[in-house]
């Protein structure tokens, strides 16, 4: 039914005729190397700056709708010191904002088949377990966790993960948030010692279009930094029962990007149009280059933190 290929050969001592199933052979020839799963296990150092220099009310390039923008502008950083919220993990979206590297491992079944890939946690992000065994995602009514629930599949040599059931969390640590209905899809693109994660955050509540991210890492034999010490609870004296916030129109940091980098407020408030080149035409005329950098950070010589 599947066809057979006949291989005949002879030598001075023997003559052989071998019948082989054609389909598995062709599959082997066609799939290798294109269908081979690649090994992602190991330590991967961050080579991107992350959001180390982060200004409040910077939502540039985030395709926010009105609800998303309003949610972000209502956020006060003092929420982090509310007892219920201190030392909470961020969601898996932090993979694209945090400064740390990746430690990737896999879990195998007794037959050697990979059951799950795991991205080890950071001090502020729970581990991501990518289930590869075909298990379904939980019901829509199942509880959401900051770590979410993630499954994966191979598309050729590219691992594609899909995360659902996250809680509301940060897109950026400055209060830009995604909803608990958001889903995160990540393509793991490996080229030798480079690994690029290309992600898509879909959020029907706060985004008017998918948010695309990409971030690169470099393989290292050293231990990647993932912990900067235990979380220390802060106390800003927030009264019990109070949730720090800003009412609409009262966020005092709305022009921080303008003060620091001459990025106009119409840009820092985000929106799908801020992702595309045409948007530059809107802000070009009023833009003035800053002649001296005062809030830029910069690594300079010496070891990177």
């Amino acid at each position, binding site marked *: 039914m599947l066809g057979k290929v006949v*291989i005949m050969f002879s030598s001075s001592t023997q003559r*052989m005729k*071998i019948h*082989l199933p054609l389909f598995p052979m062709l599959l*082997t*020839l066609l799939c*290798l*190397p*294109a269908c081979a799963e*690649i090994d992602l296990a190991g330590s991967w150092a961050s*080579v*991107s*700056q*992350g*959001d*180390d220099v*982060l200004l409040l009310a910077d939502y*540039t*390039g*985030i395709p926010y709708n009105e609800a998303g923008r309003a949610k972000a502008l209502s956020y006060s950083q003092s929420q982090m010191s509310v007892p219920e919220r201190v030392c909470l993990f961020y969601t898996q979206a932090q993979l694209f*904002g945090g400064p740390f590297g990746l430690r990737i491992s896999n879990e195998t079944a007794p037959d050697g088949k990979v059951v799950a890939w795991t991205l080890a946690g950071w001090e502020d992000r729970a581990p991501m377990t990518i289930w590869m065994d075909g298990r379904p995602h939980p019901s829509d009514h199942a509880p959401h966790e900051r770590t979410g629930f993630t499954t994966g599949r191979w598309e050729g*040599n590219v691992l594609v993960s899909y995360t659902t059931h996250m809680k509301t969390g940060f897109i*950026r640590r400055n209060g830009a948030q995604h909803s608990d209905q958001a889903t995160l*899809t990540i*393509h*793991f*693109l490996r*080229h*030798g010692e480079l690994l*690029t994660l*290309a992600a898509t955050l879909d959020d029907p509540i706060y985004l008017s279009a*998918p*948010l*695309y991210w*990409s*971030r*690169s890492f470099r393989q290292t034999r050293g231990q990647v930094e993932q912990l900067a010490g235990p979380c220390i609870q802060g106390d800003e004296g927030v009264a019990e029962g109070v949730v720090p916030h800003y009412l609409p129109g009262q966020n005092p940091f709305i022009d921080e*990007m303008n003060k620091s*980098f*001459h*990025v106009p407020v119409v*840009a820092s408030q985000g929106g799908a149009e*801020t*992702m595309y*080149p*045409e*948007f*530059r035409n809107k*802000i070009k005329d009023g*833009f003035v*280059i*800053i002649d*001296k*950098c005062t809030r*830029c950070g*910069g*690594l*300079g*010589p010496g070891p*990177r933190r």
Partner: protein
Amino acid sequence: MSFRFIATILLAIQLLVGARAQTGGAPKTAALPDLIGYWVSVVTTMDWRFRMVVPPKGDYFGLRLTPAAMKIADAWDPARDDASGEQCKSYGAAGIMRIPGRLHIVWSDDKTLRVEFDAGTQTRFFHFGDGKAPATDVTWQGNSVAQWETSGSGGLKVVTTHMRSGYLRKNGVPYSENATMTEYFDLVHETAGDLRLIVTSNVEDPMYLQQPYINSVQFKKQADASGWDPTPCSARW
């Protein structure tokens, strides 16, 4: 004995298939057809302020520069670049992918991919195999040698040398003529139907970079040339 023989045959065929793909005997037929067409930059991440506007003078956050490079960056003067006709320094091969705009990717001939940029009205040529001997003179876009990858995630690999000294960022962060850039082009199919191009680049420059500058940018496929807007190089925007 027989299984060993069969395995040997399979291995030999596999090596032949792999070798053929590696050498790029027929680059155009081996191409990812979806790569051809118009693409638009999508700028979403924390480096928005480095790409969509001109960053402040001296802002080289995230880069490990040598002291010589920092000296140049700190002395950046766009008026001087204008006056000397050097407005295209940030539109060289090592910088242009990060400038918001559109790409038009087409085959120039059977062994050469042509990548046109509306920003700065620049063109890069990706030469497959022995499509072109290494250039002797440096140019803004340098000499790029391409191959389809059969290992890793697949896609297109491009190595560029012979670049005229330019800027990694609009604000005068330099790369030198000794720089080498390796790029990987990957296609990602989105569930919503979008097709995304991810370009991961690794710039190595012993003169101005203490560590390789590795970053990735992304583009979205367009159905046509909508928005294609060739503009001249600008030192100030």
